[in-house]
């Protein structure tokens, strides 16, 4: 800004008349001299002073010092100065101008934020500042944000030339999200030019396709996320059910214990270690659930091996006792478990919104799955466990201590449920009823996937999780579940023992 232009602008404050002041604000915003922000801020807060006799405009800083607005030099005495009067119209003018002033901020991040603000408000007054900044912008990311803001203003303005509208359509089409879609819609209402109209319609259909694809991808993501939770909850059940052929109705409570273990860890850890709480919670949850699991196996289930239906009832009793015990210890209301920093927030990947905690739960599910596969495939215990799963009597005849394998398998299955609880504590309410919400879905996964192979559980969890999330928007969550239940009932017509049934001679198979 030329020095004399700044003089002219500042001179307008000397009149202390509202129209003149407003004009000065506009000029400051458009020309954006370095001191403009400080002057406007002072004006808004009644700190802008003038001395008509000496032709000086000055502002008082928040600390109380008086600064010459033009030179930036401090002024010794402010006795001769009067305040520039402000009314609501002036204040709103200041607010508008501050937005465009930050467009010229030296920090690129702030410039982008300012451009995004304009994109949201679509304030046509910001257009000159926007274009001025665009002309000299060097940062490509800022330039893009500025162009988007410009296009947004163009789209909602009435008197715009066709080439400008075409350019705006091009920019919005590249953005391709819901905002762009609605902006192009508005633009379409305002124009009569057939060229612009057809360009807008092409852009709309291209955005529509793009949105549909990203929408499907987002559903898929939600499905994956649901699948990972299902897999974590069901995989321990698949192990215990596979090895022993008994249903542990208290499995959900193992998950619940894992979640409470996370809560206790966060309660006891000093603040400095809070970020690492999950590193402590996962082994503790595994241990607690595994110990309780072994206790159930040793004290109850092993006496009921030949009576699987009664095992179901007995373990249901255990689940009632565990729920009530936790309720007595921790209270019936939800406990607050916080997300560590790396698990909070969300980020965008193209048109996808990905929440960090869901992402980490998927990672955890994969890690648990791989670890279990390793245990089953590469350790002597895993070998023996698979043998017992396939044929208990034959395995016993080969010298495998089936009682020991049962106990260890129960410890493993329950421990994994505890780890699932750590994951669930990050996305769900930690209450004594936590396990009940997942147990029936986990059973469905096991029934669907079969117990012969962990891949069956994984495939079962994936199928049910994704199918559920795809059906949900179409027919509603509850109907989706009912449809899935019917599908499973029809499915077991064909494969009564699930996707991955064990092969071999059997009376019942």
């Amino acid at each position, binding site marked *: 800004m030329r020095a004399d232009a700044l003089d002219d602008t500042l001179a307008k404050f000397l009149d202390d008349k509202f129209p003149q002041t407003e004009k000065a604000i506009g000029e400051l915003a458009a020309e954006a001299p370095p001191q403009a922000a400080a002057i406007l801020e002072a004006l808004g807060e009644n700190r802008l002073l003038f001395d008509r006799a000496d032709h000086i405009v000055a502002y008082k800083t928040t600390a109380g010092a008086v600064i010459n607005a033009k030179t930036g030099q401090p002024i010794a005495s402010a006795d001769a100065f009067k305040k520039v009067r402000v009314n609501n119209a002036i204040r709103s003018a200041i607010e508008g101008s501050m937005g465009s002033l930050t467009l010229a901020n030296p920090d690129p991040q702030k410039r982008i934020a300012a451009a995004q603000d304009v994109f949201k408000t679509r304030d046509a007054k910001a257009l000159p500042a926007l274009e001025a900044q665009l002309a000299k912008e060097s940062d490509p990311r800022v330039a893009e944000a500025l162009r988007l803001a410009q296009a947004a203003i163009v789209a909602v303005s009435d008197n715009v030339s066709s080439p400008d509208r075409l350019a705006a359509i091009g920019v919005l089409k590249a953005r391709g999200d819901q905002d762009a879609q609605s902006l192009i819609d508005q633009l379409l209402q305002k124009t009569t030019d057939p060229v612009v109209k057809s360009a807008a319609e092409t852009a709309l259909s291209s955005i529509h396709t793009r949105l549909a694809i990203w929408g499907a991808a987002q559903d898929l993501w939600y499905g994956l996320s649901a699948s990972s939770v299902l897999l974590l909850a069901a995989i321990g059940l698949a192990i215990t*059910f596979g090895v022993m*052929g*008994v*249903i542990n*109705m208290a499995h959900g409570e193992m998950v619940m214990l894992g979640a409470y273990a996370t809560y206790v860890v966060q309660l006891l850890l000093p603040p400095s270690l809070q970020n690492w709480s999950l590193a402590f919670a996962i082994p503790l949850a595994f241990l607690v659930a595994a110990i309780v699991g072994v206790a159930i196996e040793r004290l*109850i289930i092993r*006496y*009921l091996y*030949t*009576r*699987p*239906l*009664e*095992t*179901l*009832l*007995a373990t*249901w*009793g*255990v*689940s*009632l*006792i565990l*729920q*009530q*015990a936790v309720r*007595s210890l921790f209270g019936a209301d939800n406990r607050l478990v916080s997300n560590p920093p790396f698990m909070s927030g969300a980020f965008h990947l193209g048109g996808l919104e990905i929440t960090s905690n869901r992402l980490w739960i998927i990672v955890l599910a994969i890690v648990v799955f791989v670890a279990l596969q390793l245990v089953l495939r590469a350790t002597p215990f895993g070998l023996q466990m698979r043998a017992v799963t*396939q*044929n*208990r*009597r034959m395995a016993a005849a080969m010298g495998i201590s089936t009682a020991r394998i049962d106990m260890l398998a129960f410890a493993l299955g329950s421990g994994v449920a505890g780890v699932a609880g750590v994951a669930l504590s990050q996305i769900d309410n930690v209450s004594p009823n936590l396990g009940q919400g997942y147990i*029936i879905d986990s*059973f*469905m996964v096991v*029934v669907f996937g079969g117990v012969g192979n962990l891949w069956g559980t994984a495939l079962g969890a994936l199928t049910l999780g994704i199918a559920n999330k795809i059906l949900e928007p179409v027919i509603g969550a*509850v*109907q989706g*579940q*009912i449809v899935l*239940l019917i599908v*499973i*009932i*029809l499915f*077991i*017509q*064909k494969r*009564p023992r699930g996707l991955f049934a*064990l092969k*071999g*001679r*059997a*009376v*019942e*198979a």
Partner: protein
Amino acid sequence: MSERLDRLGLVFVALLALAAILVPILSLATPADSALNIPPYLVQLFGKYVCYAILAVALDLVWGYCGILSLGHGAFFALGGYAMGMYLMRQIGTRGVYANPILPDFMVFLNWKELPVAWWGFDWFPYAMLMVVLVPGLLSLAFGWFAFRSRVTGVYLSIITQAMTFALFKEFFRNDFGFGGNNGLTDFKDLLGFSLQSASTKAALFSASAIALIAAYWVARAIIGSKYGKALMAVRDAESRMRFLGYRVENYKLFAFVVSAVMAGVAGALYVPQVGIINPSEFAPANSIEAAIWVAVGGRGTLVGAAIGAIAVNFAKTYFTGAFPEYWLYGLGLLFVLTTLFLPKGLLGLALTARDKQPVVETPAIAVEEGADP
């Protein structure tokens, strides 16, 4: 043991018949301060227990004699209850809060303009009673046909029936489903013109429940005593062998399952006017499992034991939830664990064995076949 059980059954029926006659007399004909008087709230409570006993007998028929541990009987019970509840809702008529002659209050509240098709005809008692039988019957028929045909047995079947219950539980919670959503159906006024508040109606409902229990026992007894019943028990003990012998195992199971579901539905229909409300929580999977423990406590495969178990456990529940509410779940949980561990034949089985003074032969079957399973 079977003869003794039959004799016990006769005593049981006689006692029930006596109760069906005496309870109304004692409730209505004795002065309120008399020691013999049974106040209406107790009549209602006993009536509730008797309905649970019918459900237990129904469950015992499939579990004790056919080896099917259904965790869906709570759902059949609730469906029968809803059918009755819908009749009672239509009887309210203009006495509702919104005084709409056709639409129940909750529909007016939801701003519905006309009666959904599912509600048509429910103002006519015979139709409502038909639905009490048909809805659980058809659901169990369809469900059982699919399940037994594909040889879903044991815990798999239990889990699938539980999933069915759970799905219905969630569906009935929805307002859009058209059955009162979360709040269910309530504020009933009268049944066949008799006010549900009056002591005489309560006494009559108790008698009706007792007679229904006798009928349920008699039907189950007749099935079990017949040639068909023998085959049913053989299916329970050695399903594969029966199949190899040429029996259509699934038909035997399906028949028992459907009869049992209808019994459960009737029990639910008698239950609703006595408790005055039916809501989706009756579908809760926990209810169905609790019914199984009544049967287990009383004695599986004894019918009488199941009925006694239902009454005993619910009596204990009423007492404990009043006296020590926070310990009831511990008690119930322990009941599940201890009964299955130490009382595999239930209280009645224990009593009968003690008098026999000889070890009971374990039902061998399930053990053998599960052992041969992969």
